[in-house]
């Protein structure tokens, strides 16, 4: 049976981009351990609104761990303590009575804070727009079974394509690097015959945009892999480097 607990929250409050921000503390009673983490924040917000205070702004939409809207550093960990779990899928079972929970936004140069726990991740969209696609127009496609794909490659492509674009990898990397995100897309498409044609060009332009957006370099900390709620693995980065160097060599020839 579920238990009700009390939690002490230390939450980052920042009015807007310009504000310098600060932690504020709240104590919340009567939190059911069956509640999700975001339902706990909902409960806090209902209370704040009732008391005439400003509720805490945070992003969420699907609350099923798939849309990538939710974020937050929870006690210093992206998406909190559970492995391969987004903040919206985290439950209060993972906390004990009277725990103190520190909640902060993603922090990265390429993800400026908009308000409280909400950050701007549009740099990810810009990276995709620069090459994260197959150049096929509607109507161009041959029959779906005309090109065979080995089950192994289809499965690997699926694993890479499972990325939800939440930004945990960037937030947990000491360099705020986006290598895991970018490499997952490059791998997803490079593993399929449909994406092979443009593979090198894609790697080239996505890496270029990634750098322009202010993401840092990868120095093999592997924090990204550890924090990824979808278990995207580091081998994608190796695959991306291969495509990238192939592209470099090709362009020098």
């Amino acid at each position: 049976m579920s238990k009700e607990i009390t939690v002490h929250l230390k939450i980052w409050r920042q009015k807007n981009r310009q504000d310098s921000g600060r932690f504020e503390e709240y104590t919340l009673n009567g939190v059911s351990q069956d509640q999700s983490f975001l339902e706990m924040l909902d409960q806090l917000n209902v209370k704040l609104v009732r008391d005439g205070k400003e509720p805490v702004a945070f992003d969420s939409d699907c609350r099923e761990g798939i849309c990538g809207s939710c974020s937050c550093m929870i006690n210093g960990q992206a998406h909190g303590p559970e492995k391969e779990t987004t903040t919206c899928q985290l439950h209060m079972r993972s906390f004990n009575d009277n725990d103190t929970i520190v909640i902060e936004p993603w922090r990265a140069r390429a993800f400026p804070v908009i308000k409280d726990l909400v950050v701007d991740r549009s740099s990810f969209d810009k990276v995709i727009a620069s090459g994260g696609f197959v150049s096929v127009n509607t109507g161009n496609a041959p029959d779906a079974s005309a090109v065979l794909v080995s089950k192994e490659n289809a499965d690997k492509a699926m694993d890479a394509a499972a990325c939800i674009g939440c930004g945990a990898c960037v937030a947990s990397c000491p360099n705020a690097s986006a290598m895991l995100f970018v490499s997952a897309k490059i791998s997803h498409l490079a593993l399929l015959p449909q994406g092979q044609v443009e593979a090198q060009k894609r790697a080239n332009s996505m890496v270029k945009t990634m750098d322009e957006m202010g993401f840092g370099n990868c120095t093999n900390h592997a924090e990204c892999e550890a924090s990824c709620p979808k278990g995207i693995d580091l081998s994608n980065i190796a695959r991306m480097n291969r495509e990238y160097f192939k592209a470099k060599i090709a362009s020098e020839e």
Partner: protein
Amino acid sequence: MSFDLDSKIPEGPIQEKWTKHKFDSKLVNPANKRKYSVIVVGTGLAGASAAASLAELGYNVKSFCYQDSPRRAHSIAAQGGINANKNYQNDGDSTWRLFYDTVKGGDYRAREANVYRLAEVSGNIIDQCVAQGVPFAREYGGYLTNRSFGGAQVSRTFYAKGQTGQQLLIGAYQSMMRQVGLGKIQMYARREILDIVVIDGKARGVIVRDLVTGDIERHVADAVILASGGYGNVYFLSTNAMGSNVGAAWKAYKKGAGFANPCFTQIHPTCIPQSGDHQAKLTLMSESLRNDGRVWVPKEKGDKRHPNDIPEEERDYYLERIYPAFGNLVPRDVASRQAKFRVDENKGVGNTGVAVYLDFAEAIKRDGRDTIAAKYGNLFEMYQRITDESPYEQPMRIYPAVHYTMGGLWVDYNLQSTIPGLHVLGEANFSDHGANRLGASALMQGLADGYFVIPYTLGHYFGKNEIKKVDTTHPEFQKSEDEVRARTKKFLGINGSRSADEFHRALGKIMWENVGMSRNEQGLKKAISDIQQLRKEFWEDLRVPGTNEELNNELEKAGRVADFLELGELMARDALTREESCGGHFREESQTPENEALRDDEKFAHSAVWEFKGENQEPVRHREELKFEHVPLTQRSYK
């Protein structure tokens, strides 16, 4: 002004209608396409596929979504799969069978010609998605594989693990982002449409709030496409995303777009049951689970034993018992209602008694744990994360939850609403699923609308109509903007004591109890008066902290709840006037002796289309008569 409900179904045999229509349609030559601009509201499967395809053709597109990125649209959450008529399994599928199943599954309340077209283009969707790099599941030989879904006896569902919606959406999103990179689409994320601007009888623009700065913007175009999704969140608890709303569609309704069959909602049979009052939304467990899971309750009323302690002979596998032909794969409305009946007779399970079991023990014994894990592993994990119970060890507990809305803005064969120039795609329109949608058919419809229908019918609209030049200084823009600002001011000025969420919860309760799985005259009348009362309280006692000039989640919610408080009443009215049962709409007064939905084709073989008549005025109910020339009207039977 009378309401024009001409469906514009092309002449000729059903198999040739779409081909002929495309040929007869006006064309816009490539150079001229560059002169036209289109607003697309929504970046789900319908909106993203439309925006990408139109931009590829040369149109200038402006796209909007309320999330921080178009990739996060609610379509991303679809799990199970997408139907298509490929017949790769050689099990007798065809365009005709998919058409037939969809009309029958919808309980004969959809327009045949539209459904046929949907079935016809379904195969192209799979081709397109594969070409984009959607990693559909494959066999060892490299060929695509399929699974079966409710309401069909063939295996026609394509899937990408339990993340089909995500993969299809990412495919469409990437195509869209390619056009963003090429400058053909301007993307406006974190924007909410607060009004539709109609000039000289044609849809010409939108009024939008920038959700970060609070700026109110005007956007003008030559046509407007709404692909803003469904309105299931009127029930507060549903499987929809937190932000899913009816706002854009509701504003269109108020500007003259007919709203069709608002009471047709789908209650999905396999969701994780509610655990307490803190809950903000419900989580779906894909219907594909019914391929291998067996649904049961204890035979004995009030049996509180652990499910694993209840012997085989004391279990009632009621779907297999009542519907031997379809068993656990009966359509959703039937499965949901049967679960409710079991709970009503006090055979429900779990702590709350409001659930039934979905059991994988036999499948695990038959196929092995690994095979089952490969198929459903991520769903099982999700279930365990939420409930703290493992479906490998004991049956899942499931219960129906609001999931999808078949009703929506009325559209003709060209997907145009009753407002010229306003086209409506995806779940936001009412078109193809009648009174009940079959599993894996929403993704199919959204992508059919966006990739393969609107690129033709929008060209036809431009070719046929003279589109006058207007800009955002037109008085209609000013008027709309003034109204939007006044409403915002009102929300912020009430200064009452309750948050928007509290009103939303209260509305949800009224809707679920009276306009939910089972409806009757008395309950529906009560719902109408209760909603009116709640609406009054809302406008007197709402509290929205903060200002307009900032990111303000509470202000966003207030606007959405205000719309739901009006829509809920229209749904109850629609349900009240439809004195028959069909698909997801079950009127207790109209049932067979075996408690199956009993249609009244004599009186109700039509779509009800509601016309807005002004604030606090009764809306008017119009009808579009439906003709069934190819799928003969019969009482549905899945026995």
